[in-house]
């Protein structure tokens, strides 16, 4: 098609040079077969580029695919425990994310390239951050904010200061709190959905009403059965946040594949555990056991898959640790003292804002740089 265009341009060129065109045509035939000659200095044969001339083969899309792959077990498990409602949310979210990405790229006249799979991943991550059974319009609104507002308006992949999926989730959480906190209990396929509350939500509610920890609830939530349910994900919560074991497995897979480093997940989860542990030690009547804090809510999903988003987290190892600790601190503050039972999303977004600052102050020191320059 492009060639056709060029031909047209040529034809429409000034008529005065018609004669010379013919001559040029002659020249064309005379230089046509250079293959036989040994000397062929101007054949456009070799690729010339800067060094290095080889590449390890890992591309943006292969990284995105690895992350998607690591999320699959948790996503599939959610379909198993929440049923069709969960599948529907995931499919709508991914499809609408791709459509928004395509439209935004077209409108903004950027090279249309959704094969880097980043929109697919954003769609999937957002779905995993929504309650199962979310209505379709809620999901589509979320992907609109994630893809169009949080990502493309800021310049597309690589330029967004905030994690797109989290922006989508937080916008929904603030705008439609009722829909975003309507949880359904795990149920087998076909059974009617029963609304319930998440363990964290129940804990916060009982604290609000009683002013101290309800020991019955503690006993219920800390029964071996419930802890196991938390681990394998047989509990209420967002689609993708419930199965701690599968999320952790995905995280270990990503660390082993060197897609992410251990710094953010470990410092994030570690600092949540440590801080809630300190509060628990001080006043066990008002604060819950740290293990419960670590295993419930969206901490694993957030720490492994959302906080480690390349674009919005620091680049150096020390920066990543600071980032993780910051996330942990804010999460704990929101969970213990804020109005929301869960604070992972807000914590990550707030730390996203601090990322340029962290990057600036954790700049690596050039090899051999003198101490006092």
């Amino acid at each position, binding site marked *: 098609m492009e060639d056709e265009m060029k031909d047209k341009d040529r034809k429409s060129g000034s008529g005065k040079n018609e004669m010379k065109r013919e001559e040029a045509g002659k020249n064309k035939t005379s230089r046509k077969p250079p293959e036989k000659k040994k000397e062929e200095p101007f054949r456009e044969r070799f690729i010339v580029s800067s060094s290095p001339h080889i590449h390890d083969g890992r591309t943006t899309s292969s990284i995105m695919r690895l992350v998607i792959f690591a999320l699959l077990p948790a996503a599939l498990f959610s379909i198993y425990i929440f049923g069709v409602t969960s599948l529907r949310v995931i499919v709508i979210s991914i499809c609408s994310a791709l459509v928004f990405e395509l439209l935004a790229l077209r409108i903004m006249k950027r090279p249309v390239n959704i094969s880097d799979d980043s929109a697919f991943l954003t769609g999937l991550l957002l779905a995993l951050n929504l309650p199962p059974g979310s209505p379709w319009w809620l999901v589509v609104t979320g992907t609109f904010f994630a893809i169009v507002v949080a990502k493309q308006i800021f310049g597309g992949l690589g330029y967004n200061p905030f994690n797109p999926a989290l922006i989508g989730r937080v916008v929904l959480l603030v705008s439609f709190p009722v829909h975003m906190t309507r949880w359904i209990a795990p149920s087998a396929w076909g059974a009617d959905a029963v609304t319930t509350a998440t363990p964290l939500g129940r804990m916060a509610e009982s604290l609000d009403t009683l002013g101290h920890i309800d020991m019955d609830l503690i006993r219920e939530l800390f029964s071996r059965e419930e802890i196991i349910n938390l681990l394998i994900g047989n509990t209420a919560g967002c689609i993708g946040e419930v199965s701690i074991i599968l999320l952790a497995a995905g995280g270990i897979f990503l660390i082993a594949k060197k897609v992410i480093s251990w710094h953010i997940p470990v410092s994030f989860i570690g600092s949540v555990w440590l801080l809630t542990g300190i509060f628990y030690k001080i006043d066990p009547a008002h604060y819950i056991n740290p293990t419960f804090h670590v295993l419930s809510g969206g901490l694993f999903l957030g720490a492994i898959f959302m906080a480690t988003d390349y674009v919005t987290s620091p*680049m150096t190892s020390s920066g990543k640790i600071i980032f993780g600790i910051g996330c942990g601190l804010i999460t704990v503050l929101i969970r213990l003292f804020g109005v929301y039972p869960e604070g992972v999303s807000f914590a990550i977004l707030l730390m996203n804002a601090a990322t340029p600052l962290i990057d600036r102050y954790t700049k690596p020191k050039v090899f051999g740089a003198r101490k006092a320059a």
Partner: protein
Amino acid sequence: MAGGFFGGVHPEYNKELSRGKSIRVMPLPEQLTVYFSQNLGAPSNAVVKKGEEVKKGQVIAQPGGFVSTPVHSPTSGKIKSTGFYPSPVGTLMEAAVIIPDGRDEWEEGCDRERDTAGLTSDEIKDIVKEAGIVGMGGATFPTHVKLSPPEDKPIDILILNGAECEPYLTSDHRLMLEKTEEILEGASLFARAINVKNIVVAIEKNKPGAIEKMREAVEGRDGFSVEPMEVIYPQGAEKQLIYSITGRKVPAGGLPMEAGALVQNVGTCLAAFEAARLSRPLIQRVVAVTGSGIKNPGNVLARVGTSFRDIIDFCGGMTDDTAKVISGGPMMGVSQYSLDSAVNKGTSGIVLLKADEVAQFENEPCIRCGRCLVVCPMKLNPSALSIFAERMRYEETGEHGVADCIECGSCAYVCPSKRPLVQHFKRAKAEIRNRSKKAG
């Protein structure tokens, strides 16, 4: 075992293509294209003209300053023409086309045996300088300059660089196997020139044969030792090698001598030996001809000035799907557009790759994955540097240390966005140089 610097990558080495092939001497080609300037630093000036007869070893270009070297004719013959030809360093460079007369007659005074035992430090430096010897690992920095440290910077260790960390290349490996004694002789000359007693031969552990051979050869030689190195790229980079061996850091922006160390490539040692013992200037070198595009990979002893076309023909020719011709290794080498490019003193290898093996750069935005920070052996932030360079904010690249970049290519090798990082840094360096030149 030595070798643990920050960063680095593990590319596919693919050395088995040519490491088992002993060095073959290439016959005199029909014509030679000898560049008038073959060193880093000040360009040399031509002293011959079209139509002149030259002898083998005759000076055809004089050094253009202290950091510069003479160039010698690789054979006897007639200069057919002079003009600009594509050169392995990536520019069009002035060269003399020499048609050999077939007699291969030496210039008077060359090719005479000499007793090296009584040579003083200054004599050795002069011989090295006159013979036009440059760093043969690829950098082509004039060797006599390295041998002349200022007096307040004493050097106490000489490191023979046999790391050969570049993928594919095997010329140093073969030299260490086949010219072991000569290399060590050359090294002791260097050691004498700068009065150093401690000489370490650094070899990556993927060359056990060379390590073995060198170990045997250094036995009974005072001060020599062999150090097997961890196999990681860029182990052979000067600053990284010094750190791996001595634990000393070359100051940023400084020279290796500031860490009290001198690094010489094993090929350079051989050239020094031949210059001192046999009075032969540097007119030939070993070139590894390898890669999937070459039909019969091997190591070739070729005259300086032999065209890539002739060498490739000598190695059985190239396959039709060869997409890239690289002078040097695939990490730091320079891609060529023409087989008219000819071997110069720094051409350590010719690597021919197919289209599916070569990196394809895209001008996509950085996704800040941080992989480049992890692998950068200079602890730079290639991501930030490239973003500044992209926006033409060259002053800021300078502030962030682009001058310390050794252009090893590790960052671009791992970049998932396939950004042309090294090209950005080369460009930034060039812009900064130009601006400071303009400023006076």
